[in-house]
C-alpha cells in the first residue's frame, strides 16, 4: 500500500489498473478526460496489458464495451455529461444484455446551455436503464468503489453493469491523500474475471441480443428487477469483504448522527463532506441535525433508508438534478417509498456553489416550511 496525493480521476485510473480489464474503449470528455489519458499512458508504458480502443464517440465506446463484455472479458469505460447522453440508447442495451461493464461517470451538467461544471443530471437521466449506480464522496471512495463495482457487477446474482459516479471538478480535479492498495490484495479481493456466460465462443455458439416479442420481453425485464433486488445484499457483502482486506467499509448508505435528529439532510456525492461539517457545527450548538448519505442510488435501498430515518422528524433532500414540475429525483424516491416529512431542495446545478450558509438556510426552511420544493442559491427568487 502506498499513499498518494491525487485527483479522483487518477484514483479511478489507479483502480482500473489494479482491476486489470482486458478491453478499455474510451472517448475523452471534460471532466472525465484525464481518466482516459492516465489509462492510455499506463497502456503506452506497459503498466497494464489492456486492449485500449480509441473509439470515435461515446456511443461507440459503450457499443464496443458490450461487444467485448459479450465475448466474456472484463471491460472498463468512462464518460461524462453529453457523452453519457450520447450513450443513452446503449446504456439500456448494456443492462438488458446483462454485461457486467463498469463505467465511471464524471458528473457534469447537461446542455443547453452548455456547461462543463458539476451536477447529477447526466447519471440521474440514466436512472431507469437497469444499471447499478454508486455515488462517491472523495478520491478514496472513488478508487475503492471501482474495485467494488466489478465485484458487484460480475456477481452471478447480479450481472448488471455498474456506474461509479464522481462529481466533476469537485472530485475529478481536486487532489486528496489516497491509499493505493497493492496488487496482491486486489487480486485476492477481485480475481481475474472468467465470464461464465461467454457467449461468443465458436465452440459453444450462442446468440446474444436477440429479438424478444410480447411473449418473452416482460419476463426478461422482470429478471433485471430481481437482479437489482439481489444487488442490495451483494453490495453489503462486497462492502464487508472489502473491509476485511482493505480496512475501509462502504455500504448502501451512510447514516451520520441520524439517530435522534430533528432534521436529516439527505444527499449524494461530494457535497456530503460539506454536510457532515455542517452537521457537526449544529451539533456543537446543541441542534440535532443528521446526514444521510445515499451511496447506492440504484438499487434504491428502501429498507436501509427507512431504518436510518425512522426517528427523524423532518428530512431535507438535496438534489443536484431536476425533474421539472416535481423536484429532484432523490426527493421523489424518498416521497414515494419512505414515510417521513420530506422537503426537496434543488442545489448546485451547473456547478453553482453551495456553502454551509446555504445549508443553514435549507435547515431553517425544513424546520419552518413554506413550500415543498425550493431552488437554493438563485440570484433572485
Amino acid at each position, binding site marked *: 500500500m502506498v499513499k498518494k496525493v491525487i485527483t479522483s480521476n487518477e484514483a479511478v485510473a489507479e483502480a482500473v489498473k489494479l482491476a486489470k480489464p482486458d478491453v478499455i474503449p474510451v472517448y475523452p470528455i471534460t471532466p472525465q478526460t484525464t481518466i482516459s489519458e492516465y489509462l492510455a499512458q499506463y497502456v503506452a508504458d506497459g503498466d497494464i496489458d489492456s486492449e485500449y*480502443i480509441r473509439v470515435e464517440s461515446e456511443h461507440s465506446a459503450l457499443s464496443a464495451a458490450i461487444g467485448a463484455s459479450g465475448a466474456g472479458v472484463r471491460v472498463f469505460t468512462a464518460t461524462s455529461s453529453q457523452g453519457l447522453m450520447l450513450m443513452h440508447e*446503449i446504456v439500456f442495451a448494456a443492462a438488458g444484455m446483462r454485461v457486467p461493464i463498469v463505467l465511471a461517470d464524471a458528473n457534469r451538467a447537461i446542455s443547453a446551455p452548455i456547461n462543463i461544471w458539476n451536477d447529477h443530471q447526466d447519471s440521474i437521466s440514466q436512472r431507469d436503464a437497469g444499471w447499478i449506480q454508486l455515488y462517491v464522496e472523495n478520491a478514496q471512495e472513488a478508487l475503492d468503489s471501482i474495485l467494488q463495482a466489478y465485484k458487484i457487477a460480475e456477481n452471478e446474482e447480479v450481472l448488471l453493469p455498474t456506474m461509479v459516479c464522481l462529481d466533476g471538478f469537485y472530485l475529478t480535479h481536486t487532489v486528496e491523500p489516497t491509499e493505493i492498495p497493492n496488487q496482491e490484495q486486489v487480486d485476492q479481493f477481485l480475481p481475474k474475471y472468467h465470464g461464465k456466460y461467454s457467449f461468443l465462443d465458436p465452440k459453444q455458439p450462442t446468440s446474444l441480443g436477440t429479438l424478444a416479442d410480447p411473449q418473452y420481453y416482460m419476463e426478461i425485464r422482470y429478471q433485471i428487477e430481481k437482479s437489482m433486488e439481489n444487488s442490495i445484499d451483494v453490495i453489503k457483502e462486497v462492502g464487508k469483504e472489502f473491509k476485511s482486506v482493505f480496512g475501509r467499509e462502504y455500504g448502501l448508505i451512510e447514516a451520520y448522527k441520524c439517530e435522534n435528529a430533528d432534521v436529516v439532510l439527505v444527499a449524494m456525492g461530494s457535497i456530503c463532506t460539506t454536510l457532515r461539517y455542517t452537521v457537526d457545527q449544529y451539533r456543537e450548538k446543541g441542534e440535532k441535525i443528521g446526514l444521510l448519505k445515499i451511496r447506492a442510488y440504484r438499487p434504491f435501498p428502501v429498507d436501509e433508508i427507512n431504518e436510518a430515518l425512522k426517528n427523524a422528524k423532518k428530512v431535507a433532500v438535496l438534489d443536484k438534478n431536476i425533474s421539472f414540475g416535481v423536484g429532484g429525483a432523490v426527493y421523489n424516491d424518498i416521497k414515494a417509498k419512505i414515510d417521513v416529512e420530506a422537503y426537496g431542495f434543488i442545489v448546485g446545478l451547473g456547478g453553482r456553489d453551495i456553502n454551509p450558509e446555504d445549508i443553514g438556510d435549507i435547515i431553517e426552511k425544513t424546520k419552518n416550511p413554506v413550500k415543498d420544493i425550493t431552488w437554493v442559491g438563485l440570484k433572485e427568487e
Partner: protein
Amino acid sequence: MKIPEEELLAPGHRGCAGCGATIGVRLALKALGRNTVAISATGCLEVITTPFPETAWEIPWIHVAFENAGAVASGVERAMKAKGMEDTNIVAFGGDGGTADIGFQSLSGAMERGHNLIYICYDNEAYMNTGIQRSGSTPYGASTTTSPVGKKSFGEDKPKKNLPLIMAAHGIPYVATASISYPEDFMRKVKKASEIDGASYIHLNQPCTTGWGYESSKTIELGRLAVETGTWMLYEVVNGEFKLTYKPQVKRPVKEYLSAQKRFKHLNDEEVETIQEYVNQQCKAVGI
C-alpha cells in the same frame, strides 16, 4: 470452387421467400467456416434470424443496436485478441441503412482504426425492415415509401452514395463489391478478406423481392441483370489498387433491369435514358 454443403445459417428463419440477404449470409459463412463470430446491425437480418428463443445462427452472434455494428465488432475483435483467439474470423453484417446512413460513423471509426475484421454491407437499396423507406444507398429513380413517385416526383432524385470507394478512402487493405448472383466471386472475396490482417469491407448487392417488386423466384436473375447492365459493378481495391473482377461480355440495356422491378415501373423513356447515361459514365470510368 467447391461450395461447402454445411449451412451455418439454419433454414426456418423468418425471411421472405426469395430473400437475397440470407443467401448472402449463407455464402459468406460457407466461405468463413465455423471459427467465426458474427455481429449484426438491427435490420431485416437480425429480426428474421433471432426471434427469441430461436436462432438461425450456428456460430456465435451478437446484436446491440442499429447504428453500432462497427463499434460492437471492434470490441469483439479486441476481446478475442485478449483471449488469445485472434484466429477467429470477425464478420459484421449491416444493411445499407445501418451502413451508409445511421451506422456510418461507427463503421468509419472501425475501418480507420484498422481492426482485424470483415464488414459486409448487404445492400438492398432501402430501409426494407421498416417497409421500404429511402436510404443513402437508394438509387436514382427508385420509388420508395419516403421517396414516392407522385405528380411532382419521379422517386429518388439522387444517385446512391458510393460506400465502397468511401471505405477505400480510409486506406484499408481490402475493399470489394460483390453480388449474391455471382457466388464464387463473392465467396472468393470473403475468403480473401479473412486472410488479410486488418479491416476489410465488402459491399454486397442483394435484390429484395418485397422492396424492389419482382417475383420471389427471380432474385438471382435480378442480381445478374444489375451486373450485366453495368448498374452494379464487381471489383476489388487491394492496398489501394483498383481491379475489376468481372466484366460483362456485352453490356445489356439498363431498361431490361429497370423494367423488371416495380420500384422503377413509373419511369418514362427520358428518365430511363438519364439513368442509362449515368450508368455508361460510371462504367466507362472503370473500363466496362
